[in-house]
Structure formats: structure tokens, C-alpha cells
């Protein structure tokens, strides 16, 4: 039986997941340099061992109300094609193992999210985990770039 692993994290009260194959590492929040004229959801850039990476505030990206960072706030570094991007999340909880049966294809609308951001819905012990499609989330949003 095919099994996939997901890094589960929290945004507000909802649980989300990213395929573990895309996750490079998880960092505590560090100094973020603001980038003027960047889209609003781009929090800025960070230094990850000598490379400069953009950091996206995932809550702003997905139209949540953004909150201040806490001790639990983490930056999940994901690798999309050859680019690394940091995603700010409220807390990282665990690594989930999901079988294909536990993953349902994405419905058209989940909590107001565009379907293209969602890869599917995972069901574990009665919990629902929204599995995100990082490639479309991190894609350059050309319309928002005009500063």
C-alpha cells in the first residue's frame, strides 16, 4: 500500500500538511529583512547559511488574519524545483503518514481557498488535514508585484 509522509503544521486553528519530500528543514523565526515593493505576503528575505531566501507568510498568502509571532512560530523551508522558499507557520506539530485511502481529492472550495492551492484532504483519527500544493502557492504572483 502506498504511503506518503506529510509535515503537519497549524495556521490559526486549522491543520495543514506539506509533502515531506518538499520540506528542506524547519527553522525558528530569525531576522527577516523586509523587501520593499514585494507582494504583501512576502515577509522578506532571510539568510540561510549563505543563501538569501524569500520568506512567505503563509497566513497572509492564504488570506488569514496575520498575528504576531510566538515561540511556536516556525519557518518551514520548502524546495520547489530548484528554488528554496521559507513559509511562516504558527506551529509545526508532527509528521503524518497517510495512505492513499486516507487522502481525498480536493473539493472545489475549502475554507475559502482556491482549489489550485490544495492537493487534497487527509483524514487521520477524525482530524482533517489540508494538504497544500506548494508549487502554486509559491508561484510568482505577477499581478501583485506592481508596487
Amino acid at each position, binding site marked *: 500500500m502506498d504511503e506518503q509522509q506529510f509535515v503537519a503544521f497549524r495556521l490559526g486553528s486549522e491543520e495543514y500538511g506539506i509533502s515531506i519530500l518538499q520540506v528542506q528543514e524547519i527553522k525558528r523565526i530569525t531576522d527577516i*529583512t523586509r523587501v520593499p*515593493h514585494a507582494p504583501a505576503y512576502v515577509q522578506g528575505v532571510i539568510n540561510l547559511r*549563505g543563501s*538569501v531566501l*524569500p520568506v512567505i507568510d503563509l497566513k497572509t498568502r492564504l488570506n488569514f488574519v496575520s498575528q504576531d509571532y510566538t515561540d511556536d512560530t516556525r519557518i518551514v523551508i520548502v524546495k520547489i524545483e530548484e*528554488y*528554496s522558499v521559507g513559509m511562516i507557520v504558527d506551529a509545526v506539530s508532527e509528521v503524518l503518514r497517510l495512505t492513499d485511502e486516507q487522502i481525498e481529492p480536493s473539493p472545489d472550495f475549502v475554507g475559502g481557498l482556491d482549489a489550485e492551492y490544495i492537493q487534497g484532504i487527509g483524514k487521520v483519527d477524525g482530524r482533517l488535514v489540508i494538504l497544500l500544493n506548494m508549487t502554486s502557492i*509559491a508561484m*510568482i504572483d505577477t499581478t501583485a*508585484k506592481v508596487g
Partner: protein
Amino acid sequence: MDVNQYMGMFMDESREHLQTLNRCILELEATPEKLQILDEIFRSAHTLKGMSATMGFHDIAEITHEMENILDMLRKGKLAVTSSIVDTLFKCLDFLEQLVEAIAQGGSAKLDIAELVAQLRNIAVGKPVESSIAQLEVAAAIAQPLEADNACVLNDFDRNNVAAAIQQGMHVFEITVTVSSDCLLKAARAYLAFAALDDMGNIIKTVPETTEIEKENFEDSFIVLLATDHEAEQIEHAVLNISEIAQVVIKPVLVQVNVPTSVTSEDAAVSKVEAPKDTNPNAEACELAPVQHQKNKVNHTVRVDIEKLDDLLNLVGELVINKTRLDQIGSTHNLPDLVETIEAMDRVTTDLQNVVMKVRMVPIGQVFNRFPRMIRDLARDLSKEINLVIQGEETELDRTVIDEIGDPLVHLLRNAIDHGIESPQERIAAGKPSIGEVKLVARQEGNSVVIEVIDNGKGINPDIMRDKAVEKGLLSRAEVDRMDNNEAVRIIFLPGFSTAAKLTDVSGRGVGMDVVRAKIESLGGTVEVDSRIDQGSRFTIRLPLTLAIIQALLITLGEEKYAIPLSTIDSTIRITASELKTIQNREVILLRDNVIPIVRLARELQVQQTVSEEEDELYIVIVQMGEKRAGFMVDTLVGQQEVVIKSMGKLLGGIRCIAGATILGDGQVALILDVGTLMQ
């Protein structure tokens, strides 16, 4: 043999040689009397032949071989350089290019080279020379079949040597030594075989050349031409004694000693000179040395994978960041010893950086080189007369940019010739010289390289641009009417726009200028157009020197630190708020009697808290780009520092006002300002 590992090298070198050939043959066409060019052409063709034969690309080898025959005849004056010969040579190059590119695509395209080869042979044989040198050719023709059995091609010098040896009663053998295919140290085995052969006689020639064999630039076998007193069996035995030698084939070389009767006196002289050498086999090596030396000078390079250079540059970047860090520790903790040591280290890292940068930089001439040929062909196809002027080919650009800039330039040049330059008749009618001029100019300007394509043709008519844009449904009539002429000319960069009334295969396939613009912008550059009707057009490409380590001035705006490339900075000044004046609602200052517009950086960059708004003393950084100057208002000046430009990735690549990012000594990321955009 597994040739795949050599494939990259083969492709690079083949393309290089093809380019040399193109350039040289063009030069030959212009100055047929310059025989040195023929030598260079010959050398390139020869190398190409050797390489392709080794790699098993027989079509390429065959064409180059036939080319070589003709070139040799040209060189020796047996043929005169005529336009038909030059055309045929160019045709050969086209075929070779196609073959090489087909290999690059992974296939081995089967082009029909038979006709071309026949044509070449016709030139070599069928069209005998009109002049009196015909006799010589006959002599050559006689010599040819005699050597037909032998794989190695003898030149006159070798032939004299062979003849001399035979006259002295020595045997001359062509020995083909094959190294077993699993041999790891081919060069070492070859050396042992050489040593053994050298002991037994006198090595006249090797194929490939000795230096190439030493570098292991041969497949499994090499050929040695040996003059010796020993018998064939003895030689075979001696060579086979060396381990990992798979096979030795020995063939006697017969050169008809009587053929060059007309030059016996000369020949005798040669053999006399040779005579003492035969007693000392080493003398031969000495004699060969200067020739090889000369060759090495021409090509003393190492090919390195660009990724390795990227890694190296990154590491040097890290080193610089850490050095800056140490520097800061030294000054914060007041450690004079440390500061002194770092100063010494500083010099080393600076040199290191310069070297690494230089290694990555390639003169743009590499790209420009292929254009004269292209223009010549185009001009011919379109029956236009064009003079291409190239300036600044020594301007250096990062290798990655060089690789990408070729296609956009081809497009611009093709457009200039196809749409820009008029036919000679039209030009004369317009009162212009019949020969049109296309200029390709490159120069460094601060942190960017500017490449201009300028033609003195008919220019771009803004009204026609407007009409076409409406006709093609790209813009509405109202939109185009609002545009001034400059904007209208810029319509050329819109996707789906092509001005050619009828599509030619030269340009105007509808994927022209918007692709050019996209490509250049993807490299972080800009392209502008300036055009005057009947005077011509000028396309200006501005490209950054990417991946560089630059000197920058660090400034603060509120809590944030930014870097301004030092190369754009004219000076820094401190003014009082009362010195700020306004002209037409724009803030300006007067500096040495010049009016300089002021840019409040904090506002431009949306910085929240800033002190400079209220302070009476203001720091102004005067920046300059080309002729334009501006003053950037900043909070404080931190200091000058060298910074490593890091890309911000695809997501933030094209962001306004920011040219890149850098990592400071404390690990923080600071953004590098794009001075050009901020000035506008």
C-alpha cells in the same frame, strides 16, 4: 571507447573551431593574399578533423579532410582564392555546423555530404590550376597513390625526412600501436612505447602529435613513423614487450625517392643536415621542441565546468563575509593585532576575488565573432550592401550572461538588416551612401554592460507602428493616439507584433522583439529603442555584471540597512534642510552649479520610521548613471564595504528598486538598491 565523457569538450571545441574558421575565411575573402590566415584555417580544420575522427563522427572528418586538401593547395599557391572556393568553404562550415549541432541534440543527423565532398574534390582535382604550377600538382598526384596505403598523411618536410632515411639505407616503418582498451594510463603506456621505439631508431612523425599523445588525446591507437636499422619483427617484439599493448601493426613506408628530382640539390642538403642527427636520436626531439612550444602557447587552457566556478565564487563570497565579520570583531574589541592580520588577509581575498571574477568573465567578442559571417550571408540574400562595425569586443561579461545574450543580438541584427537598412537603390534615392552601416558596440558602464545595435537605415515610423498595433488588435485606436512617438516606437516590444509586411525567413516570424525583451529582462537587463525616421534606429541593451562581488556603501533608513553600489556613487554630502529647493514640485539641490533632483529613499522604499524627514542635517548620496545624476536622501552612512551580490531567487527576481541582496558580517541580509530605477 566510451566517448560520452568527452562529448562536452568535443562540442565546445568544435564550436570554437567552427567560429575561428568562419572568422578566418571571412578575413580570407577580404584579403586573399594574406597567407597566414590560411595557416590558421588549416590548423583549425585539421584539429576538427582529428577530434571528430577520434569521436567517430566520420561525416565531419570527411568534410574537413577534403577541406584540408583544398586549403593545403591554396596555401601552397596551387589554387587561387576565388569567390567560388570561398563560397564552397562556407558551405562546408554550414554543413559542419549542422552536423555538430545534430550531435549536440543527441542524434547523428545523416546529412547528404556526398555532393559537397564531390564538389570539394572537383575543386581539388577537376579544376586544375590554370597557371604554370600544374607540374607540381602532377608530382603531388604521383606521390598520392604511393602513400595511399599509409594512414598517416605526410607533409613535404616528413617526406624529405623519409626520403633521406631511405637514402641512407634505413627502413622507414609506419607503426600503429594499439593500447588495450581497458588500459588506465594510456599516456604512460604510450610513453614506454615511444621510449622503446626511440631506442631503436629515429621517430620522424607521430599521429596524433607527441604532445597530444602525452595528454592522452588519442583513442586506443597512435601511429609512429620510425626510421630504423632494425627489422620489423624486432620492433614488433620490442613494443609488444610493454604490458597493456594490444597490437602492433608495422607497414613499410614507401616514398618514391625519385619524385622530387627537381629539388635534389635541396634534398641533399636536407639529408646532410639530417645525417649527424641520426647518430643521436635525441636530436630529433630537440628539433621538434620549438614547434611544439609554439603550439602550446596558442592553446594553454584548461576547460572547467561552469558549476565548479559557481561553487568557487560562492566559497570566495563566504570567505569575504567571514572576513568582514572578523574585521568587525577586531574593531569592536579593539584588537590591533587582529586588525593588522585582517588587513593582510584583505589583500589576499581581494586578489582572490579578482582572479575568480576574471576567470568567469569572458570577452563579448566570443559572441560577436559569429556575426560578421551572418551579416555577410544576410546582406547577400537580401541584396543589400552592409558594413558591420564592431566595437568593444574586449568588454567582459559573466560567462552565464554571455551564453544567453547571443540569440537576442542575432534577432536585433537581423531586424536591423532586414527592416532597418534599405536596399542600395532606396538608399541612393534617399541621398544616403549605398552601403548601409550596422554598428554593434559594447562597453562597460559602472556595474552594467551596455550593448548597442545601431543602424543608419530607414528607422521605425511611429505612425506605422500605431496603425499596425490597432490592426493586429493589440491596442485600441484611442490608446495609440495617446502615445507620444517614443512610446509608439516601443510598441515593437509588444508580444505578437511584427512589422514585416511579408514574412521573410530572415526575421519577422512574429516572435521577434518581445522575445528579445523577455530574454534580456530575464537576465536582469533592460532594452530600449530610439529611432528617427530615415536616420536609423538604436537598440540599447543594458545588462548587469551578475554574480559579482562589488564595493558598496551601506546606508540606513530607519532600522533598515541598504547597500548602494559604489560604482554608481559620485559623492556624499551633508546639507541643511534649507538647501532643499523645489522646481516644478520636485525637490532639488544645487551642487557645483548643477541642479540635482532629490529622491527621498525612505519614501521610495516604503520605510516606516525614518529620522531624515525631521532632521535639519541631511545626508545625501549623489549617484550617477551615464549623464544623469540624482541625490538619494538617507538617514545615516554606515561605511564602505565589499558585498557579495546574491540573487533573491525567482520569486523576488524582478522586484522594483532592488538589484539584489547581500549578507552582512552579522549574518543579516541587506538589500542592494537598483540605482537606475530609483533615479527615474
